[in-house]
Each structure stands twice: as C-alpha cells, then as structure tokens.
C-alpha cells in the first residue's frame, strides 16, 4: 500500500504537493523542488506535459523521486497516447516503483507551444480509470491475462467550481465507478462554493483533496484565468493581490493559500498544493494552515 493510500485510509488531513518537469533533461531544479517538499507532504504529483507543452516525461521524473525515497503521484493524461501506450505506461510505472496514478483528460494541444500536434484522446479519463482498474485485476482492456499484475492506487480530478456543477458530479460518479479511489480538485479560492460542491460529492464516499494553487501576483492570476484550463481566480482575490506591495507578494501568497486551506479543512480529507514554481513556500503554507 502506498503512503498516500495509507494516509487517506487512516483519515488524517493529507497533504500532497506537485512539481512540473522541465523542457529538457536538466532535472536539478525540479528535483530540488521535490526535495523541499520532503517531510511536508505525503506524496508529490508530477505533471504530464502540463499545459500541453512538450517536457521530459512524468514517468521518468517519478522514477527519480522513487530513487530518492520520495513518493510520487504519476499524472497520466489521455492527450498524447493511445490505449495501448496508456496501458503500457501504467505497467511500466509499476515496474519503476510508482504506486499512485492520477488519470486525467489532459489540456488540448492548442493550449501548448506546438498546436499542430495531433490530439490523441483515444481514451477519456473514465475509460482510462477503467483500463487501469482492469490491469489491477490482472487483465488488459480487452480481457487478456497479464503476466503479473500491478496494484496501482488510482486517482482522478474534479472541478468543484464548475458552473453548472452537475456535469462534473455526473462524471465524478462515473470515475468512482470506474475505479477512482481519491480525488484532487482543481484550484479552489472560495470556501462557500466549495462547501456547495462537497455537499453534493460526499455521497460518493471517496477522499477528496482540495486543490490550492499558490498565486504569485494579480497578473499571474489574470493570466491563468485567460490561459490555464480549469482555473478561475475570483476578482476579490485579484484585487487583494493588486493591493499588495511587491515586496509582500510571497507573504500574501502564503496567507491566501493558508487561509483557504484553514477554511476548507473541515470539508475534505486533504489538500493538494500546486506551487507552480514557488515550492519553497510550501513549508510555510503547511505551517500557517496549521497542518504541520
């Protein structure tokens, strides 16, 4: 059983972090970011060609984390690989010591830096979860027996701020039926909206880790609203950041993150912190949020 699975089973408020692999083979900064999270988080997500930008692979970086005694969550999107490659990568991940997988649809190639890349999406995230569940039971998608089966801990994503919310809930239920055992949400900034979501989602009886994206500036927030799929920073937070002096931005970023975590803590089973490069702030956020 992975540490993440154990932590969620044991019921304490679970904290996960995230790193983004670079475009290139120099992993020094990326692994330093991971090292900073050691002891502060139970597991570290490694993104899969985030924002559809070609980068070194999540699997390779996850394997490096395993080597260093850190626990990764292998993010696997449906954007770039057909069903054969996806199943293969799940088996390969297991072989490399990776135990947690987050199954995602994936940002569309037009959002990236090579919009002519062919979008694959041979499977969607629900079908991917089903395929992974099948592998865990010792068969591939078409019912062929495996020589040795993995036991991957499968997770999925949900967007609690979607409007309308019902389609997300319908899909969330399908993901649970397909084998999702934990959820990490897209970024949340408004606790009362999140409460509305939790009231509807708790019937699925799966652990939910609320997503927190660390905001560097008002400009970054606006940029993300325009360009990053699934993120919606409300005007009130943008204004709060605009009114913050430049030298206080890191402090404000920590304050907003920690405050949001404290407010939503009673509603969910953990938090997934996405520092987007400001990994050095995660220890402070964890502490200010009362989680250490």
């Amino acid at each position, binding site marked *: 059983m992975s540490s993440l699975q154990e932590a969620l089973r044991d019921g304490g408020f679970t904290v996960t972090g995230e790193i983004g692999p670079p475009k290139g083979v120099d992993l020094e900064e990326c692994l330093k970011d991971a090292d900073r999270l050691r002891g502060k988080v139970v597991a570290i997500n490694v993104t899969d060609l985030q924002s559809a930008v070609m980068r070194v692979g999540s699997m390779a970086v996850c394997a490096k984390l395993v080597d260093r005694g850190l626990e990764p969550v292998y993010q696997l999107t449906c954007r770039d690989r057909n069903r054969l490659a996806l199943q293969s990568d799940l088996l390969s991940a297991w072989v490399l010591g990776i135990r947690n997988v987050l199954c995602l649809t994936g*940002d569309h190639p037009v959002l990236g830096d090579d919009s002519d890349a062919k979008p694959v999406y041979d499977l969607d995230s629900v*079908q991917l979860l089903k395929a992974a569940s099948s592998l865990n039971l010792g068969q591939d998608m078409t019912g062929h027996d495996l020589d040795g089966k993995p036991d991957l801990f499968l997770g999925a994503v949900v967007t609690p701020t*979607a409007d309308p919310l019902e389609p997300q809930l319908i899909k969330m239920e399908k993901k649970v039926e397909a084998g999702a055992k934990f959820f990490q949400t897209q970024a949340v900034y408004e606790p009362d909206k999140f409460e509305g979501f939790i009231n509807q989602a708790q019937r699925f009886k799966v652990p939910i880790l609320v997503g927190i994206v660390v905001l560097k500036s008002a400009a970054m927030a606006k940029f993300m609203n325009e360009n990053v799929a699934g993120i919606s920073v409300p005007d009130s937070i943008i204004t709060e950041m605009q009114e913050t002096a430049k030298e206080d931005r890191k402090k404000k970023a920590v304050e907003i993150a920690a405050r949001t975590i404290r407010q939503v803590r009673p509603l969910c089973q953990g938090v997934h912190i996405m520092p987007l490069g400001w990994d050095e702030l995660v220890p402070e956020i964890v502490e200010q949020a009362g989680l250490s």
Partner: protein
Amino acid sequence: MHATIQKPLDEIAGYFKPGEKVFVVGCDNCAAKCHSGGIPETEAMADRLKARGVNVVGWCVPQPPGVSLCKLANTKKVLQEQYGDQVNDADSFLVLACGQGFHTVLDATDGGMVHPGCDTIFGGETVSDDLINEYCSLCGECVVEYTGGLCPVTLCAKSLLNGPCGGAKNGKCEVDRNRDCGWQLIYDRLRALQRLDQMREYMPPKAHSKWSRPRSLHLGTGEATFSSLAGEHTVVNHD
C-alpha cells in the same frame, strides 16, 4: 455535404509545367454550394490561370444541374461525350471539388495526371446559403442517440465520450473561448429532453477499426455491407 475551399491560387499555378495543357473540372453540387467549384468559380479559375500564362484548354462543370462530380458514370459520360476533344488534348486536369470528386476524375480519365484545386475540409450541414457547419465526423459508430442528438466526437474538442473535461469556463471550451463546450450543449439538450440519465451511463472507448481508411459500402438487394478493418458488416434494410 463535403465542404471544400480552394487552395491558394499561387499554389495551384505552381503545379503546372510550362506549356502543360490543363482542363479544369468543377462540381455542381457541394463545390458549387461552397463557391469553390461551381460554374462561376470554375470559369473564373480557367480565366485566372490563363492570365498567368497557364495553357488552359477548356473547363466544365458536369450537368445536369446539382449533380455531384463524384458520380463516376455521369462524369465519365460528360467528359467523353461533351468535352471529348479537349479532354483528349489535355495533358492534365485541375479539379475544383472534394477529394471524392477528384478521384472520380482520376477514374474517369483513366489515371492521367490530375491536380487538386481544393482542400476538402469537413462534412457539413448547409445551415444557410452563407454558412456550412460541421456536426458529424463520419466516424462510423454513431452515438448521438445517447447524447441528445449532438455528436461529442465533433462538438467536443477532445472527442470525449464521457464528458465534460475540467477545462470549460462559462460553458465555453478551453480551446476557444468563443466556442461552446460540446458537453455543455449535450447536457443542456439531455436535460431539456429529460434524458439526463443517459449521461450517467458509461460509454466504452471508440472502435477505431471502423475509422480505418479506405472504407467501402457494397449494395445488394435489400442489404448493404460496410467494409473496414473492423470486418464486413451487413445490414438487411428491406424485408
């Protein structure tokens, strides 16, 4: 209908060797509706190429009115019987029509050199004289019974069968904020039809063997057989 758009004139003009005798062929159905290969456009193309020094020996848009170029028997007949001299004189053909019409000319002229004057861009609904929209991707495995009549393969940028993804904002797709999220449209339609339960059903992955190209349809008496890499599939359509 097959939507087509002319290739850039420079590209087309660049096809021809000096002195190459070219016969231009348009289509009075889809290409006419798309203004890429109807009578006015085909005549204009012949004139424009002549003005650029291309040796255009003639042009035609096979009739009767509204007939598609992709009907091999008619195209062959028109080219041989009504334009026989020019066709025999020509070194090559330029086709202003979709890829199916293009290949028909290739077949009708016994495999001589045929140049494509258009890009075939999608299969569409003629919403009005000015607008053709794509609603079907010709995937060979129609699921719109379960999605309120709206095709997720076509309307969802990711062609998700179990949608939506998490990228939509205000009902608009992450790839283009002016574009409706396909699954938002499906959700709205299913609610209106009181069939939202269908969205809760798991949709299995697509059978891509049915997309494998080229495909064919053989017609027999009271039956039709579709051939693809998924095998031969016969349906009896008449008792």
